[in-house]
């Protein structure tokens, strides 16, 4: 019992033990000072946190309602912005690598540099047939435009390119080894969680450990939405 007292105490205080487990734990508490102390400390912390619970101010509800109502009356406003961005991308890509291939950061891993360059150039790392089916991004209305297996630097990967009706693009790279993390990356949940790096307007987000999936795109929100859709956040 003492071995998992921490989790059991947390589940007990959160009301997440089954009736049988709850009864056994209550019986155990009567004869175990250590677990009693755990529960006592946990309960004091829980009670303190609960004093912070508050209601949202009424004006906030009104502000949200107003914002959404006005967004509904101009439904294409954001779409127009995306279309403009997509049009700009087409122009830049058509103008080839002159403006878009940005300088690699001083210590950015080669695989990440190649992944971002591949996205910027709208180019997959190889033409070998993928051995695994494409990750499903249909929930985001993203259509698979192409796939290919090859290498990013020394790293073997399979890449899948997607595009939506507004012209927004994503590339999902699936590796058999861990994608190396740039020093400037932002960690979401410690070293086991996802990480994200940005350069020259392109976002690269690696799935949580073992970090073998990388999503690359220009739209920060879309990259995050894709990570949520693929359940890798």
């Amino acid at each position: 019992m003492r071995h998992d007292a921490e989790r059991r105490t947390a589940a007990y205080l959160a009301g997440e033990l089954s009736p049988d487990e709850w009864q056994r734990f209550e019986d155990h508490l009567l004869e175990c000072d250590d677990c009693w102390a755990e529960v006592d400390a946990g309960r004091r912390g829980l009670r303190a946190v609960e004093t912070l619970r508050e209601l949202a101010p009424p004006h906030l509800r009104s502000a949200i309602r107003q914002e959404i109502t006005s967004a509904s009356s101009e439904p294409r406003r954001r779409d127009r912005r995306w279309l403009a961005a997509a049009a700009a991308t087409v122009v830049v890509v058509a103008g080839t690598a002159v403006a878009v291939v940005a300088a690699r950061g001083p210590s950015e891993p080669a695989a990440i540099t190649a992944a971002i360059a591949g996205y910027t150039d709208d180019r997959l790392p190889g033409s070998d047939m993928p051995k695994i089916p494409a990750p499903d991004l249909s929930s985001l209305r993203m259509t698979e435009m192409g796939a290919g297996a090859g290498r990013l630097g020394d790293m073997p990967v399979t890449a899948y390119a997607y595009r939506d009706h507004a012209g927004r693009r994503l590339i999902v790279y699936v590796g058999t080894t861990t994608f190396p993390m740039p020093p400037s990356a932002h960690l979401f949940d410690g070293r086991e969680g996802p990480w994200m790096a940005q350069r020259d307007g392109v976002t690269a987000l690696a799935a949580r450990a073992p970090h073998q999936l990388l999503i690359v795109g220009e739209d920060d929100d879309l990259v995050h939405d894709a990570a949520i859709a693929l359940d890798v956040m």
Partner: protein
Amino acid sequence: MGDDEFLQEALTHVDMVYNLARRMTSSREDAEDLVQETYARALKAWRRERPRHMPPWLATICLNAARSLHRRRKNRPAEVLHGGLLDDLPAAGDTSEQALAELERDAVRRALARLPVEQREAISLMDLCGFTAAQVGKMLGVSRNTILSRVHRGHKRLAVLLEEVVGGEA
């Protein structure tokens, strides 16, 4: 029609989102901005696809929006939370009882802000938003047991920090 449906359903969870936003930002004003950003992002996603279960979906969007906000400000949440919490101090019109309660809550806010962000997120999502450990685990991409450990360690640390405050005032 779709946006109205979104409003009707999503606004019933605004207290939950606000409580989460309050713990991820340093002031009421920032929390309100974060809630509005969350709803704007949620509407955009809603137009693409309806979530199966709205509360954890909204909470996940709120957490992601908070991370984007902190990235834009080049600050980590812990640093922001250690900053100004002055809007939570008692107001001039408070009775002595209200003022005392507000000072106690202020001590809890400060103690909570000193916890590692992983513990603070888990505690906020379970204790203030009402999610189960399994739901929080799914949102944060870790196991239920990890969440239970984070919550319990956070509670114990909070109790110790608050005792230090009381001891320091005695």
